[in-house]
């Protein structure tokens, strides 16, 4: 039996609020937490499989060209080597999120340094790794495009991403205060803790892959398409994912190569990327050049807003970092110009990394807003508040809900913002200059088609979907929704995830996981409630479900009794509809930071940081908060340390390990405070929840950079704000 909802109308019933179990929103621990901390949660590369052999990828050392010859026989003769493979179906780069089909394939044409050109399969991992270093691949190099800002390279302007409204030049000319500045952000790597890995096994023509993937429904189709087989023959199992951050949205080299190799040697094959391969073969965030123009009247009201972004991508890929995604609607300004340009480059494929678009676009826009505040002599919080539009400034749609104003106020209050001294270099502690900064947060929200099966049996509830839990709390949050709706205690709920044999969902990405799949669970539970009500002969609205009992009037019946040995199983389906079009949906928030800048060395330390967020209904206050903490930590990394360094001569990533790609470490992260605002967004989903995963990074880096300016008076327009950039003007 299927229950179906198309989200055409807002749902203002707030049904979850009228339930009795009292678990929704509670800060419950993650159900799978003990498995993870005790090392018993099984990750992709850890499945015990008999007769397993190992494969290691071999990389290109040139940026552009083709393979002339592979000298395979010396390697084939090495100890333990089973095969050297350069199958035409090997991927050039991973699939983009929600592609549902194979990306560019073929290991003979070379597009970037690090591109996998072949793999070596051997009995042991060590044999395969050594043999891989010995494989000689003769290549012919041709000229590569390596400079993302070269004037001589063609730039594309994709339709639908450009806005031109009014006359920005004129607004700039007539403005009382204006900013026209160019900013840079570097490439980033997701750098998830668990490297991309897969174990592939064939049973006749049926393939099972244990892999580390974020979006199984799409990954199944991508893998099948890459291999040239029917999707029905492919099963992907991915119950635990050690972080993804976008890098595991699309099927990647590991799964495809392992499947090809397993077929070739007639045995199960494991393939894990090394850390260096993770850096150079999985998705990077594109570097960007961004020009911001802001025109304001004497009171700081924006009259003009321009955001021009230049990002890079490999030839033939449709994705490009949607830099100005939030600029389209964040601030009112009559005259607008948003330009999005792409340059085709021979660097590792660009893809979704932690809030693609807003992470860098909001960061730059919010840096420019701070510059405007300084120039106009207006408090940065007040400047933002003044420019909040009452409808989408470009397409005039109403907002589904809008909490930026509240977030700014609440943040300013909690952070004691009024104590900030606007003049740079006004607060000093010994060598350290102290400053405060803030920025707005915004991230677009979306609902995706999702399915879940919910079964209420005598023993409790079982939830099944191919949705993944990439460390975000999906297991727990889905159980809380079902527990609330069906009045069943948490310890009697089982969530089964991460298997393409289960009902398909949109996976984890775009922050839509919990609200989309959670809505599918909700829809199924509504139907189960209706059935129980029917059994009891009452209206669903008059039914109270609590602690495993159904209560109507003064009658209480144990659910187990009511169901007997005929469990109720419902497949819930939710589909986006009119609400995705009629209104502009976004989450909002505000960041505040206090930093110290060393007046001698220009080292920057974040002393405290606050994020205030509104993301609709909070399903679990603890996992939601953890998402925000993670986002803000990435914000610190983006602000101060993270950067892919490309060699100017071949575009290769030189700092491709965790010693030199500087993610923030504990000592870089001070006490972080997160405040979640109470909100229900009726347009977002039937559970009034929105995505929260990426909001915590969308603009976060700017508050730190703005605080650096307030501390020492140096404005850095190129992220990350490393000490050399400050030192130059200190």
């Amino acid at each position, binding site marked *: 039996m299927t229950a179906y909802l198309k989200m055409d109308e807002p749902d203002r019933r707030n049904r979850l609020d009228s339930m009795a179990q009292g678990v929704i929103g509670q800060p419950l621990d993650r159900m799978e937490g003990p498995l993870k901390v005790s090392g018993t949660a099984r990750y992709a590369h850890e499945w015990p499989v008999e007769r397993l052999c190992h494969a290691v990828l071999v990389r290109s*050392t040139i940026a552009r060209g083709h393979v002339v010859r592979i000298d395979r026989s010396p390697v084939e003769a090495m*100890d333990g080597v089973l095969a050297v493979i350069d199958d035409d179906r090997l991927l050039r780069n991973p699939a983009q999120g929600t592609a549902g089909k194979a990306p560019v394939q073929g290991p003979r044409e070379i597009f970037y340094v690090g591109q996998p050109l072949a793999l070596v399969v051997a009995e042991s991992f*060590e044999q395969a*790794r*050594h043999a891989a*270093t010995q494989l000689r691949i003769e290549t012919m190099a041709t000229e590569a495009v390596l400079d993302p800002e070269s004037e001589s390279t063609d730039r594309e302007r994709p339709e639908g991403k450009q806005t031109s409204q009014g006359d920005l030049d004129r607004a700039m000319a007539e403005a009382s205060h204006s900013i026209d500045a160019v900013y840079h952000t570097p490439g980033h790597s997701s750098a998830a803790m668990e490297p991309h890995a897969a174990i592939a096994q064939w049973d006749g023509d049926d393939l099972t892959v244990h892999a580390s993937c974020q979006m199984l429904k799409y990954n199944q189709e991508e893998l099948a398409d890459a291999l040239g087989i029917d999707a029905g023959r492919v099963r992907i199992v991915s119950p635990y994912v050690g972080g993804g951050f976008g890098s595991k949205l699309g099927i990647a080299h590991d799964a495809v190569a392992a499947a090809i190799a397993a077929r070739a040697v007639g045995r199960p094959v494991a393939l894990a990327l090394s850390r260096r391969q993770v850096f150079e073969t999985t998705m990077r965030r594109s570097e960007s050049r961004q020009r911001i123009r802001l025109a304001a009247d004497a009171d700081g009201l924006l009259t003009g807003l321009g955001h021009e972004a230049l990002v890079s991508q490999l030839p033939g890929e449709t994705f490009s970092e949607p830099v100005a995604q939030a600029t389209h609607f964040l601030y009112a300004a009559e005259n607008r110009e948003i330009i999005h340009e792409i340059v085709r480059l021979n660097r590792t494929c660009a893809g979704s990394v932690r809030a693609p678009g807003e992470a860098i676009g909001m960061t730059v826009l919010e840096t420019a807003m701070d510059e405007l505040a300084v120039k106009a002599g207006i408090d940065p919080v007040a400047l933002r508040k003044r420019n909040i539009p009452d409808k989408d400034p470009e397409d005039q749609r109403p907002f589904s809900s809008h909490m930026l104003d509240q977030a700014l106020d609440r943040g300013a209050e909690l952070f004691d913002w009024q104590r900030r001294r606007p003049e740079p270099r006004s607060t000093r502690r010994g*060598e350290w200059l102290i400053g405060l900064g803030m920025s707005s947060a915004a991230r677009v929200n979306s609902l995706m088609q999702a399915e879940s099966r919910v079964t209420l049996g005598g023993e409790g509830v079982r939830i099944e979907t191919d949705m993944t839990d990439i460390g975000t709390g999906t297991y727990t949050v889905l159980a809380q929704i079902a527990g609330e709706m069906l009045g069943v205690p948490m310890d009697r709920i089982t969530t089964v995830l991460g298997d393409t044999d289960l009902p398909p969902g949109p996976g984890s990405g775009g922050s839509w996981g919990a609200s989309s799949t959670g809505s599918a669970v909700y829809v199924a539970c509504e139907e189960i409630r209706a059935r129980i009500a029917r059994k009891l002969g009452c209206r669903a609205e008059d039914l109270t479900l609590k602690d495993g009992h159904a209560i109507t009037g003064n009658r209480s019946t144990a659910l187990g009794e009511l169901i007997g040995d005929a469990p109720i199983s419902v497949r819930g389906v939710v589909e986006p509809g009119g609400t995705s079009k009629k209104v502009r949906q976004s989450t909002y928030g505000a960041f505040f930071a206090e930093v110290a800048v060393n007046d*001698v*060395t*220009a*080292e920057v*330390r974040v002393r405290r940081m606050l994020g205030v967020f509104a993301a609709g209904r909070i399903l679990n206050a603890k996992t939601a908060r953890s998402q925000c903490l993670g986002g803000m930590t990435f914000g610190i990394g983006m602000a*101060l*340390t993270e950067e892919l*360094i490309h*060699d*100017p*001569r071949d575009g*290769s990533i*030189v*700092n491709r*390990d965790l*010693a*030199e790609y*500087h993610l*923030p*470490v*504990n*000592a*870089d992260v001070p006490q972080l405070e997160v405040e979640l605002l109470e909100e229900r967004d009726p347009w977002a989903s039937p559970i009034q929840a929105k995505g929260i995963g990426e909001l915590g990074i969308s603009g976060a880096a700017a508050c730190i950079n703005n605080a650096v300016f307030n501390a020492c008076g140096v404005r850095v327009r190129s992220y990350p704000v*490393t*000490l*050399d950039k400050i*030192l*130059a003007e200190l």
Partner: protein
Amino acid sequence: MRPFDYVRPSGMPEATREASRAGSAFIAGGTNLLDLMKLEVMAPDRLVDINRLDMGECSATPAGGLRIGALVTNSDLAADEHVRRDYPLLSRALLAGASGQLRNKATTGGNLLQRTRCYYFYDTSAPCNKREPGSGCSAIGGATRLHAILGASEHCIATHPSDMAVAMQALDAAVEIENVEGQTRSVPLSDFYRLPGDTPQVETVLGSGDLITAVVLPAPVKGSQIYRKVRDRASYAFALVSVAAVVGVEDGTIGSVALAFGGVAPRPWRDHEAERILAGERPSDELFARFADEILREARGQGGNDFKIPLLRRTLIATLQSATDESR
């Protein structure tokens, strides 16, 4: 990793003898060597595991100094009472390096001999004179944030990454070495490392089979000791610039002075000549600036590391200021 043999001698003559066979390498904590072996940047045919040798103790010397066994771990050395009392600079330098887990494994001998972190040294597809003599230097013209401003050559611009060695350099340490004939010699740390010149693959004066058995510190000199490390993140990053200082002020003038610099040169950098500018003088900003000028006289940036010149200048002046603070 390439297949290799493994031996674990229990006594001294055996260890140096084993190591003197071609293609052999000692392994102590393994925190650097194993990483390099996995990437096949280093590919010894045999590993001589020295962890069973009796070199794990610190002991007082008759001269009032400290003899640190080559196998004393970085964690133990940093926590050693004697070190914390008499050579706090060393303790701080150690704790500013790597991470807790690494320091638990890393040894004194291994730390001195850790290889450069030059990106291209780690990339076996890139030319590198240190890894493959005569192949060229990829760092020149490439990414040079980590690279040297002093002591480099046109053949190699790599830095020595150790923090510990910088502190030891300022403390006038000597390295005790035992050779395959069973003879022991002592080499001042100032003479232990070789500048790259046209043989960047030769990093020290060690010969085949030579084993570091200890590092010996002379009796502590009076004065303030400071280790200041500047890096790209608050912890777990190599020094962009570091300054180790031992400065004694008596009657308003600088008496003893020793300054060593890390992150800027192929070896812990020390300039005895320049130190004479400071000795016997009254501490002043003008004096420190003159000293800095002298230290940086031949400094040369490579583009990506140009900032190290002003950074070292500022850091060393600030370090001298705080070392002489009370007397000014």
